[in-house]
């Protein structure tokens, strides 16, 4: 049995988690941007990367969100089967989002999809979007990954014929060329291959959370090199780094299908995690 956690403490922790995600980039993402700045030869792209690095520093210094698009609230949760919170976790996360929206503050971004009415507090039907995964153990790990619209709008899904796996790279390249400077490159690109249409999309988004400093080979490296050969560069103004990383996640799929999803993330690859419970 895990120690009982207090509901108020939990809400406070999730609101703090959102603050962290909005204000501080993970170290591996910031390092990847520094590296991109160091190797960039285009003066224009270099100036843009320097502005991004300066902006990251100022956001941290003043404790303000790094981008005015503070995103739509997405969480990934790994819930240990032995973890017993003793209260409604989803309701508590929603409350934390409302709290964080007013105290950080966050831009109210959640609207009804048809009437476009804004709830004013970043919650609504289906939002926050929480993805639960049951895992063994007595811990609860929650990752907050607020996602901006400029990059999310450039994502895509294609249902390939099973024999067309050789076209996956070109599909990613077409997606990146069509997006140009609009999703605020340098990008992190998540590719989900297999599963079904919705599972592939989910894998693509999860792939964005992978560390950017792990060595890649095979398909990931192949796509990354091709993407950077396009020369779109930082903000679409031309340059050598269009993407910081490409991560691929796969799942078995039906023998008659090959779903491929591409999730595009802007330079602000925001996410932060917290763990509750455990042995301590």
């Amino acid at each position: 049995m895990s120690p009982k956690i207090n509901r108020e403490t939990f809400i406070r922790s999730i609101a703090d988690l959102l603050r962290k995600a909005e204000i501080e980039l993970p170290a591996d993402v910031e390092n990847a941007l520094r590296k991109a700045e160091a190797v960039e030869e285009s003066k224009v792209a270099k100036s843009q990367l320097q502005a991004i690095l300066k902006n990251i520093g100022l956001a941290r210094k003043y404790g303000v969100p790094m981008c005015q698009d503070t995103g739509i609230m997405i969480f990934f949760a790994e819930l240990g089967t032995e973890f017993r919170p003793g209260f409604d976790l989803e309701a508590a996360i929603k409350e934390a989002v409302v709290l964080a929206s007013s105290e950080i503050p966050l831009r109210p971004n959640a609207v009804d999809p048809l009437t476009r009415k804004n709830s004013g507090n970043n919650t609504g039907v289906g939002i926050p979007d929480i993805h639960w995964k049951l895992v063994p153990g007595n811990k609860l790990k929650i990752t907050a990954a607020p996602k901006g619209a400029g990059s999310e709008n450039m994502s895509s899904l294609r249902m390939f014929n099973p024999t067309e796996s050789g076209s996956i790279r070109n599909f990613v390249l077409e997606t990146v060329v069509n997006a140009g400077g609009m999703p605020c490159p340098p990008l992190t690109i998540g590719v989900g291959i297999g599963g079904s249409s919705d599972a592939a999309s989910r894998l693509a988004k999860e792939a964005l959370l992978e560390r950017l400093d792990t060595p890649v080979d095979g398909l990931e490296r192949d796509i990354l090199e091709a993407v950077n050969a396009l020369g779109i560069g930082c903000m679409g103004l031309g340059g050598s780094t269009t993407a910081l990383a490409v991560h691929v996640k796969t799942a078995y799929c039906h023998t008659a299908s090959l779903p491929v999803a591409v999730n595009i993330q802007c330079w602000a690859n925001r996410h932060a995690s917290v763990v509750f419970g455990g042995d301590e």
Partner: protein
Amino acid sequence: MEHHLQTQLKREDIEKLNAGDVVYISGEILTARDEAHARILEMKEKGEKLPFSLEGAVIYHCGPLMQQTESGWKVISAGPTTSGRMSKMTPSLLKFYEVRAIIGKGGMKGIASAFENRCVYLAYTGGCAALAAELIKEVKTVHWLDLGMPEAVWVLRVEEFGPLIVGIDSKGKDIFAEVRERAEKVLEKLQG
């Protein structure tokens, strides 16, 4: 080339700017996005006078997050929004008013000719909201707050606002279009 400009801008100020140059602006800039553009053009059609001057003006595609304090409005965050959404309305805006610079992100596809001999498009680094807020020294006034906070026209005093990259110059040279064409050629080659 790097340029430091003071508003309001004269035609001579922008004639010397070439695509790819870096610009810093000091003085007054006005925010305007979808709804403000629509209203400006509507009023022009009805022959009504705008409550602000666009003579030599700098327009910023931005929907800021503002906070009202006892001493007035405070900028929390004010990065650029995607300019592509204003592409349809911009040629008319530039025809009727002497707007000399438009600041935004992502470029404005297919309308470079509307900028010729009139205006420049200046690209500001997307997402750099904390940096932008730092360079905005004062919220001078706000018009059309009935459109909502992001859509209203905010008159801002800025100092050394930048770095801005000349994306479309007054000769009609468009960097975004050039980068896109090159990327399409590379893609064709890779597709073999």
